[in-house]
């Protein structure tokens, strides 16, 4: 018997395998459980690609979406349409990366309780968007394709971001039967996923680069005879602007003057400042990485370098990136990072709270101040301050030619220079014509922003 008893240790072999394997699993669990919970398709967290728990509210507490189960959207059709690109749809055609990236916080996961919450309460996600402004922006866009966005350059909060064509997630259109292409690109969030030819709003970039790098630029004079020759090629203006300083050239949006400034700056300086200003860099916030722009003049001849400084040629900018840029100017040359999710609470306790994060300085405060002054001057002499009652608006329009039979894209970027309303904005409207067509749109949106926390939702 001694022998047999001595051989019984073989049972321990299996005990050790079971315990060893289990301890190995516990190690994996301890290090990866947080990832497993929010892995795409995790049954407690997702449904058809979108998050399946929690409620989304706007910055004023208005419920935009209950994400659990069948996904209950707001009862207001226009609100549903204006927020669909941020909240996602039922079928996963439009995903909501900003929400998914906080799945762990929304589900309220912790190692002890998993995703359990007393009474099955999931998280409440408070966005920085304001429902009333979203609706105003959707209405103002009036069926045109494009995007409008407003953000608080002092805090980074994204107050408004609408992309059109939008659709009602409760009643999605039949896109297979769309002969006029009304719904073309409706799943796209143009603010984050698109790039546009900027047109003259790019002159803000060239202006800032010139102010930073050419000491006597303000005293220089530029002559516009309606066109500027580069050998056989030429740059044209819509009018003959005559002799002007850079400030006037900016408010005239004079292509000829800016062509001369571009020549002075040269390829390398332009490229350096485009990179320094982050114009073509994707913006990363709340799990979103926006499309990156392009500014490729390596092989360009002088005339194309000039066109590039006016926002044509190969220039492509993403609206979010350009908004960050004008926001930085508004904030004295040092912007604040944009954010969309304000805070998340589960069962009354905060699991996430956004914080204002400063970006690196992109230009001196003196330059920023000067650019702001020029932009403000531009609004008052060119578009009329009466378009923005009660607000000091600094902005620039752009009319971006896109070729083909389409009308130009209308662009408008700028900011409000009031402590009470520290808003930077961008408007991109496709196939719309002159940039000034954007003014009534942003005017209506800023009006809605001004109504503040007491703004009625209608």
């Amino acid at each position, binding site marked *: *018997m001694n022998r047999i008893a001595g051989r019984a240790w073989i049972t321990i072999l299996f005990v050790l395998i079971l315990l060893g394997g289990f301890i190995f699993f516990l190690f994996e669990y301890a290090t990866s459980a947080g990832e497993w919970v929010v892995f795409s398709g995790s049954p407690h967290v997702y449904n058809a690609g979108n998050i399946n728990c929690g409620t989304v509210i706007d910055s004023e507490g208005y419920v935009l979406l209950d994400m659990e189960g069948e996904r209950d959207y707001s009862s207001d059709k226009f609100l549903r349409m204006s927020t669909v690109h941020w909240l996602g749809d039922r079928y996963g055609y439009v995903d909501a990366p900003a929400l998914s990236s906080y799945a762990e916080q929304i589900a309220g996961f912790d190692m002890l309780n998993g995703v359990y919450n007393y009474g099955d309460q999931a998280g409440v996600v408070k966005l920085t968007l304001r429902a009333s402004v979203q609706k105003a922006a959707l209405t103002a866009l009036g069926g045109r394709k494009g995007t409008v966005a407003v953000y608080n350059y002092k805090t980074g909060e994204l107050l408004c971001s609408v992309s059109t064509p939008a659709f009602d997630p409760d009643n999605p259109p039949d896109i297979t039967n769309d002969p006029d292409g009304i719904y073309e690109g409706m799943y796209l969030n143009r603010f984050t996923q698109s790039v546009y030819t900027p047109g003259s709003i790019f002159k803000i970039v060239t202006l800032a680069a010139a102010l930073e790098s050419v000491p006597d630029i303000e005293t220089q004079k530029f002559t516009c005879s309606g066109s500027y020759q580069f050998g056989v090629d030429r740059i044209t203006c819509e009018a003959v602007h005559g002799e002007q300083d850079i400030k006037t050239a900016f408010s005239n949006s004079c292509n000829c003057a800016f062509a001369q400034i571009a020549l002075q700056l040269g390829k390398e300086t332009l490229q350096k400042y485009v990179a320094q200003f982050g114009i073509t860099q994707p913006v990363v916030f709340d799990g979103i990485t926006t499309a990156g722009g392009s500014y490729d003049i390596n092989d360009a001849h002088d005339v194309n370098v000039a066109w590039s400084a006016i926002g044509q040629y190969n220039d492509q900018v993403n609206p979010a990136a350009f908004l960050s840029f004008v926001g930085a100017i508004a904030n004295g040359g040092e912007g604040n990072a944009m954010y969309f999710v304000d805070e998340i609470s589960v069962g009354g306790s905060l699991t996430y709270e956004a914080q204002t994060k400063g970006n690196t300085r992109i230009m001196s405060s003196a330059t920023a101040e000067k650019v702001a002054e020029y932009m403000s001057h531009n609004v008052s002499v060119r578009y009329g301050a009466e378009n923005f009652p009660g607000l000091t608006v600094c902005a620039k329009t752009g009319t971006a030619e896109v070729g083909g039979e389409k009308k130009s894209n209308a662009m408008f970027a700028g900011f409000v220079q009031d402590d009470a309303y520290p808003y930077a904005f961008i408007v991109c409207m496709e196939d719309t014509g002159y940039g000034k067509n954007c003014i009534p749109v942003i005017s209506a949106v800023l009006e809605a922003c001004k109504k503040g926390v007491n703004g009625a939702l209608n």
Partner: protein
Amino acid sequence: MMFLASTIHDAPQVYVDVFIAILRWIAPILSLVLFVRCVYPLLTFKREPEIWARLCLANGKKYALTHWENVIGKSKSSDVVLDRRGVSRSHAVLTRYDDGSWSITDADSEGGVFVNGIRVSFRALEPEDIITIGGADMVLQPISGKQEQKLAKMRTGNSSVFANFSNLILLTVFQLLCAVAFLLVDSGETAQSVLLGFGGISVCQWLLMLFYLCIKRTSFEVETIAFFLCTMGMCVIATVTPDEAFKQLIAMVIGVVLFLLVGWSLRDLQRAKVFRYVAGVAGICFLLITLLFGQEYYGAKNWLVLGSFSLQPSELTKVCFVYVGASAMDRIMTKRNLISFIVYSVALCGCLALMNDFGTALIFFCAFLVIAYMRSGSIGTITLACTSLGFAGVVALKIAPHAMRRFQSYRHIWEDPLDAGYQQTRALMCMASGGILGVGAGMGQMKSIFAADSDVAVATLTEEWGLIMLAIVILCVVALGIFALRSAAVGRSSFYTIGSCTAASVLLVQAILNALGTVDVLPLTGVTFPFLSNGGSSMIGAWGLLAFIKAADTRQNASFAIRLGKFGGEADE
């Protein structure tokens, strides 16, 4: 009863929330207390050597015999070491019987065994018989009845009746809480199944304890562990397939009956030796019948369908296989080669391979390994067996594409979460969602995953009852394994020791393949977790195996599978 159930079900939501919130803490605490109370006596009982006889040599030297089976030989590992010329390494075996009588068996020695001067191969010993081995004369002096009585008194008793009784009360409270939780959260249509499931286990465990008390057996730790695992299994069924609660309950009752039958067959070693042959024939017949008339589900032809009743005979063959593999010392020593056992094992594994049931084949292989090693003590045999398994494994993967597919996704499940890795990635997501305390009874999402109550049942358990409950469940099986090992030191016959170690190993291997397979530490094989997974045949088989562990429990008045004996208490048969 149903009125009560519907009252509970109609309780306001706030009561449900509060109850679940409290149960998330109470359930693991209760389980932990129960676990510690059951396992502590199993792992701490004293294993003092008991002297059953003395072997007195003519030169006055005396050897104490501390087992019922004692090998005499030159080898250092013999129970009685006789280092003199003419004695073989393993020369003879002295065997004690229930009635206190002894026999001697010649273990194919060169010099032979002589009793009163006559060479014998086997002989029942009479008092005063003179045994001659290697030229040395000796007399066996069994202990007297009085001494045996004293021995029984000194032997570590099992834990008190009161302790076992309170354990069962704890378990019953736990079952009650589980039932109330499911009544609160379920749709109402399942109330009857839930009540029947948990209530049935409760009734069954109390009836078994009552029966034990009637036959003066008081140890109930091993059974309490099994009933606890069954309860957790019922929790999984209540959330995934509540309609099958009754079926599983019936299987458990049949399992308990088999447990008692196997235990009864093991109480008398002579009877057990006869049953061994019956089990051998039955084991192979089960598989042959399945092979001929079985049905194929999910790639493996291991189901036998009789009308509305279906079973997996291979689960019962496990019990038979342990029976066949166990062997008493005299037989081990006289019939030293394992050829007939190897042939039998190969036949069984061959049938399983033809049935495409490689998971079960692996379990049989591990059982074979334990038996072969315990009987032969040869590491060489084990190495040879493992090498052949390696080859068999390669062949199996070549001819069975569904097995290959599982191996391909092994440790790569996150790369294919929608196809090959679906079951396991969902299991891990849900297990993580449960955290340490679980999301609460019936609140899980695993229920929509294939085999959530069987192959990946531990995921459902962890999701709803927490990681801590998974740890307790795994430690329960570990405790059974360690208990079998500890019992081996005081085992009376190698038949019981081999039986209990093999049975415990099979339960461990099942737990290893099921639990570690679910979490991708091992490839998923579709093996059931003992007592926990939904599956009647598996449940019955697990109880059958438990009888072997119980039969090796030599604590006084502990096991119904051990006779109390003439002097150890009142004989009960």
